[in-house]
């Protein structure tokens, strides 16, 4: 099929379309055209989004995805007719964006090219805006074929397109019965990797024919045939690119067996994981395989030579966690058993002895400044999440013992972010450990309990507010305000929900506001969402520095800066 026929249509990505009733007198009408050929596109869904009047802050977990997955509220949806035309009637006064979602690609009104920021349209005094042209680009496609050492297709193996700047945010597909794959991606740079390991992780290695009695497996292989991401070739794709011929030949490598012995342990999560020793160098899961510790012995088959760690964290029973909010009801006296041991596989099977050891508790004080502390009952619905800095794979939690004390279950040694959920009406002011401020950084647990952690909440938070200039008008991009810690050491280790970070979409009147723990921050307004934390270094030069003081509101007006694409 010629590339110009490859059309993109909003589908599952536009799943959660809400549609508040429109009551205004205005209208917006126009046409959807192919960004490259300018030909109209019929039958494509166009969504109208209102830029909210008030500023809104987003958690990091939502922010990263909200601009590609189409879950933001919309003011309506129209399918274009055969000539690509659409019309939104009864549009109230305000600022609007027009979106078309496709395979991981968002086209917006006003873009000069597929990577440009979208622009807004203003409806005022019930006016009608007609003749809007909404250009839509096809998402690039990376395609190829996976074959084995004898040239046969490898069927059903996972192929991932991995952005070099965010190796964990890959998009994956499986090969078909011809070994072929095609993955739609946003424009950008990618490594392409075949990941037989995703099947190994289910204790089912992608086996190759053995040589004699030597077991062979197919290892993770990066295009054009590299076994490490360092030697992988970057593929750069722009909108409308159909890149084929990304053919990868898998070559079997010798594989060995790790057998282990341990003191039999009972747990709901009795798993021991074999993880690559350097997870930063490849996409997750870095877990190659998993075994059960309950019987006191385990076997891991099909492990290629390399440096690994055997990791296990056997926690006591905890309430089922949804959305990271399930608080503990009681503090289990049971130990958390753990192991984190290096293991190297070179040219033979390996036998290991796994010593499970109890972990260490994090305990400390809790204080509430500015009013009567909440009752223990009010605190009982709030979770304290103990987030491991190296990964997000283990569920560790704490709870409020009283309005003035907290404790965690035992945790293995390591670096952790303490993420306490604030009770209604309270804001996190600071977390310290041994007198050192760790609000925006991780604490170190060595081989001992740690009882010097203090969590302070306030009911009068420090706040930043201001106005973004110039004022929003038709043809401009909706402004985003990012407030991030001025302490560079807090950029590299953000954790899942950084306390010293506010990601704000400014209101249509240009105002923004956010509560934050007191401290020194950079604040910057940009014409598009930032890459967090990738853009921090460059934008810190353009940002204003603000010092937020306890209980005080700091005003800072901002000029919109151009963010990187």
């Amino acid at each position, binding site marked *: 099929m010629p590339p110009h026929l490859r*059309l993109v249509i909003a589908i599952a990505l536009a799943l959660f379309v809400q549609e508040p009733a429109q009551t205004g007198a205005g209208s917006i009408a126009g046409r959807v055209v192919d960004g490259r050929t300018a030909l109209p596109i019929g039958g494509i869904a166009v969504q109208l989004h209102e830029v909210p009047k008030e500023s809104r802050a987003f958690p990091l977990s939502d922010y990263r995805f909200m601009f590609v997955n189409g879950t933001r509220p919309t003011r309506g949806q129209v399918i274009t007719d055969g000539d690509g035309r659409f019309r939104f009637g009864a549009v109230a006064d305000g600022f609007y964006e027009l979106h078309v979602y496709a395979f991981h690609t968002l086209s917006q009104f006003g873009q000069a090219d597929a990577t440009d920021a979208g622009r807004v349209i203003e409806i005022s005094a019930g006016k009608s805006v007609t003749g809007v042209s909404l250009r839509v680009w096809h998402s690039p496609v990376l395609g190829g074929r996976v074959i084995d050492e004898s040239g046969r297709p490898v069927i059903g193996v996972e192929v991932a397109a991995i952005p070099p700047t965010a190796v964990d945010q890959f998009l994956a597909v499986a090969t078909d019965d011809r070994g072929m794959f095609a993955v739609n991606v946003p424009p950008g740079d990618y490594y392409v990797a075949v990941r037989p390991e995703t099947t190994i992780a289910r204790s089912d290695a992608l086996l190759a024919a053995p040589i004699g009695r030597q077991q062979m497996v197919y290892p993770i292989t990066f295009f054009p045939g590299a076994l490490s991401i360092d030697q992988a070739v970057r593929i750069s794709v722009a909108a409308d690119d159909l890149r084929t011929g990304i053919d990868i030949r898998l070559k079997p490598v010798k594989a060995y067996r790790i057998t282990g012995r341990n003191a039999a342990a009972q747990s709901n999560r009795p798993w021991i994981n074999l993880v690559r020793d350097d997870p930063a160098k490849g996409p997750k899961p870095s877990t190659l395989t998993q075994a059960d510790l309950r019987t006191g012995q385990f076997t891991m088959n099909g492990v290629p030579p390399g440096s690994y760690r055997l990791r296990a964290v056997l926690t006591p029973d905890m309430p089922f966690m949804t959305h990271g909010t399930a608080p503990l009801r009681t503090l289990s006296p049971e130990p958390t058993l753990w192991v984190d041991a290096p293991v190297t596989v070179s040219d033979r099977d390996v036998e290991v002895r796994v010593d499970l050891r109890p972990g260490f508790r994090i305990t400390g004080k809790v204080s509430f400044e500015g009013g009567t502390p909440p009752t223990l009952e009010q605190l009982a619905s709030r979770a304290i999440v103990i987030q491991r800095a190296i990964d997000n794979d283990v569920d560790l939690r704490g709870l409020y013992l009283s309005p003035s004390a907290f404790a965690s279950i035992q945790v293995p040694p390591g670096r952790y972010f303490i993420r306490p959920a604030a009770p209604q009406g309270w804001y996190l002011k600071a977390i310290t450990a041994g007198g050192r401020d760790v609000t925006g950084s991780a604490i170190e647990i060595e081989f001992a309990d740690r009882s010097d952690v203090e969590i302070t909440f306030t009911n009068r938070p420090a706040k930043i507010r201001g106005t973004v200039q110039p004022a929003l008008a038709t043809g401009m991009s909706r402004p985003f305000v990012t407030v991030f810690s001025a302490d560079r050491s807090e950029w590299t280790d953000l954790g899942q929900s950084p306390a010293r970070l506010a990601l704000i979409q400014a209101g249509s009147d240009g105002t923004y506001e956010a509560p934050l723990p007191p401290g020194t921050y950079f604040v910057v307004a940009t014409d598009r969402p930032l890459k967090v934390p990738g853009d921090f270094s460059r934008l810190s030069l353009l940002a204003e520095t603000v010092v937020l003081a306890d209980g005080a509101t700091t005003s800072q007006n901002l000029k919109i800066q151009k963010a990187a694409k």
Partner: protein
Amino acid sequence: MNRRLLLFTCAVLALGWAPPAGAPTNQRGTPAGTVVVSGRIVDRVDGTPIPFARVEMRVGTSLGASQLGSARADERGEFRVERLTAGGYYLAVAAPGYAVAYFSSKGSTSVPPGDVLNVADNQQLMPLEIRLARGGVITGHVTNQFGVPAAGAFLNLRQTTGRGGPSPFYLQQGATSFVTDSNGDYRLYGLAEGEYLVAAQMLGSGDNLRVGSTDAPRVGHPRVFYPGTTDQAEARPVVVRPGEERSGVDIQLRLVPLLSVSGTVAVAGNANRSELQMSLRPVTGDSDGSVFVSRRNDNGFEARDVPPNRYWLTAFGHEQGRSPTERGALVWAAIEVTVTDRDLRDLTIALQPSSTLEGMLADESGNPPTQFSVTALPVSRNVDAPHPPGRPDASGKFVIRDLTPGRYRLRVGTGPNWNTEITEVEATLAGQTLTNREFEIAAGANLTGLMIRVRK
């Protein structure tokens, strides 16, 4: 993190491909028995061994019934499932590019779940030979109502022949549900030989679709069967032979108006109106096309967002019993309605009395086997209403009440479980033997003179 996982999961699910889930040895936590099942997996055509196929053994036929053993074949196609406890197992085998095969007493079959493989403790079973057939492939192109390639359309595949019973296995090598790629193309592979209906549908694009303008009437995306019909009865089956590729199974989607069907139920006698249950179900095809019918207290009803089609509009309820806790006889109504391009208003459907079936149950020596009950299982009918089984009295006489018109099959058993069905049964109605123990009930008719003889 969660969202990334979600995206990833979607990608895999969308491909309808389940990553291999076997294990080289017994599953963890399996109670260790002494039975070993071993065998060899070969290509059905040339008999060559198929390496690294996955073997799963399960008990029971519900999807995901507990897996009690699994193995991975070696490079010679040989497998061994060890430490099984004695019992009856279903066994399935999957290999990339092949259709899933199930153990059968005659070898292997592509019809799930196959036959039960019975094993006893310390029994030395002969090695099995499981023959796999190359999977068939169906490919095609899906366009929208304007002929533009439809990316992300969901494909639905249903087999019309050799479908067999429910499969307890997750094993599935090819894809039976799939979305089109950004060209609007799809490829369904690893298919067992047979006859398939292929349908495409845009899902998840919101329920408030309008073409061209927010002032246009609302439309919906119906499921469209190859070669281009929303009526399953007009769908053209695609025949796939082992290893065969059927290309050009192209489908053009369409948008249809969404209409309203409303009216009143004429409630006869003392039927309890608040208890009435209604449905609007396509005359052909399955219940996927059913539309929710909302009811008002004044006997009014309305179904919204109804795509054009022929439907059975049905209602049923019960008359009030003699006491508040007792339910009276079933009353029912059914009319066929055709929705074209406009709303249907002021329909009236009238409730009618249900039918009864009276009969006698006896064993070979003429004694009444009172431990049995007799159930009438619907074969085809329009009103999907429940009715209690008939329980014979001391003389063997039984009555099945609350029957609505349609065709039924008699089932004699000791409980609700299929396994307790007694098949050595002869049923006669007014002296005539019933083929397959099936009988028909017409509207308003009551049947008497049924005689059922059970052979022990």
